[in-house]
């Protein structure tokens, strides 16, 4: 692995961790606030439908989770399973893309 690749993965992991810390707090606070008077699917969709600020926030959340999770899994696969090298990197990139795809699909489903 090149110095540049190692440093980029490290800083990507750190930066996405910071984004996730912020997003998780907002997510939890919103949930606590939203369920105060009971919660139904209709109520949720009423709030999220066409709400592009909500869409931007959760899209950011999804990208951060996809990148952070895949880099972490890459380390776990290397240390615990001995799964390393280009095949492992390709598998982790595929996992990142899958998480981002599934997350964005879910965001689109409640916004559009």
């Amino acid at each position: 692995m090149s110095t540049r690749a190692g440093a980029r993965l490290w800083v990507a992991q750190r930066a996405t961790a910071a984004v996730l810390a912020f997003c998780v707090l907002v997510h939890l606070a919103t949930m606590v606030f939203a369920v105060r008077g009971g919660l139904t699917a209709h109520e949720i969709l009423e709030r999220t439908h066409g709400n592009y600020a909500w869409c931007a926030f959760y899209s950011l959340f999804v990208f951060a989770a996809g990148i952070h999770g895949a880099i972490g899994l890459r380390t776990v696969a290397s240390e615990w399973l001995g799964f390393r090298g280009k095949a492992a990197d390709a598998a982790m990139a595929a996992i990142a893309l899958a998480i981002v795809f599934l997350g964005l699909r879910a965001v689109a489903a409640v916004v559009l």
Partner: protein
Amino acid sequence: MKALRVSVWRGGAEGRFEDFEVPRRGSQTVLDAVTYIQRHLDPTLSYRFACRVGMCGSCAMTVNGKPRWTCRTHVDKVATGGRLQVAPLANLPVVKDLVADMREFFDKWARSRGQFRPTATRNDEFAKVRPDSPARREADAGVECIGCGVCYAACDVVKWNRDYLGPAALNRAWTLVNDERDGAKRERLHAVAGDAGCHACHTMMSCTEHCPKKLSPTRSIAGLKRATLALALGGEP
């Protein structure tokens, strides 16, 4: 004073613990107990020591499950219920009994470019390094390493990833990165980056917790992470 019961590892990678009774003495160290066994009970016991005063780094062993320098570890502080278990350092091949093969440990110092590369000759003036400069302070914080291997034995990343350079080698590299007289900084940062280098550290701080010299290899590794990032972004180390 009640006798001390000492279980000592015998054999190589395959072996077993053998029990000995050692008389208790005031201010007795773990190394004193091991030496008593070798001199009075079983002369075939193999172990390493040299200075006996915490300078040479050769007497590190696993004492009651934790890596320690045995010459400065008092029996009183670690013998729970009057028992000691002494084994060779973890994460290194066993040569015999309490002697671990330190080759991979020191080979990794070489791989992380732990050698000083001078930029001046004997005909040049002495380098004037300000003691209060930030780089000199960083170097000072890590330079007292005695190469005992305690941090290497305590590190889980070393156990999981046999290529990982380990805390001591990376700490050494960081002291040289901060040595303004050294001429191999870029090369060294390239050598310590990546999955086998500083980026593999999880900041669990086991090395810092166990270092008998109270150094913080974790801090040095964090410094290397920042320095390699600066290099990757195009800046000078």
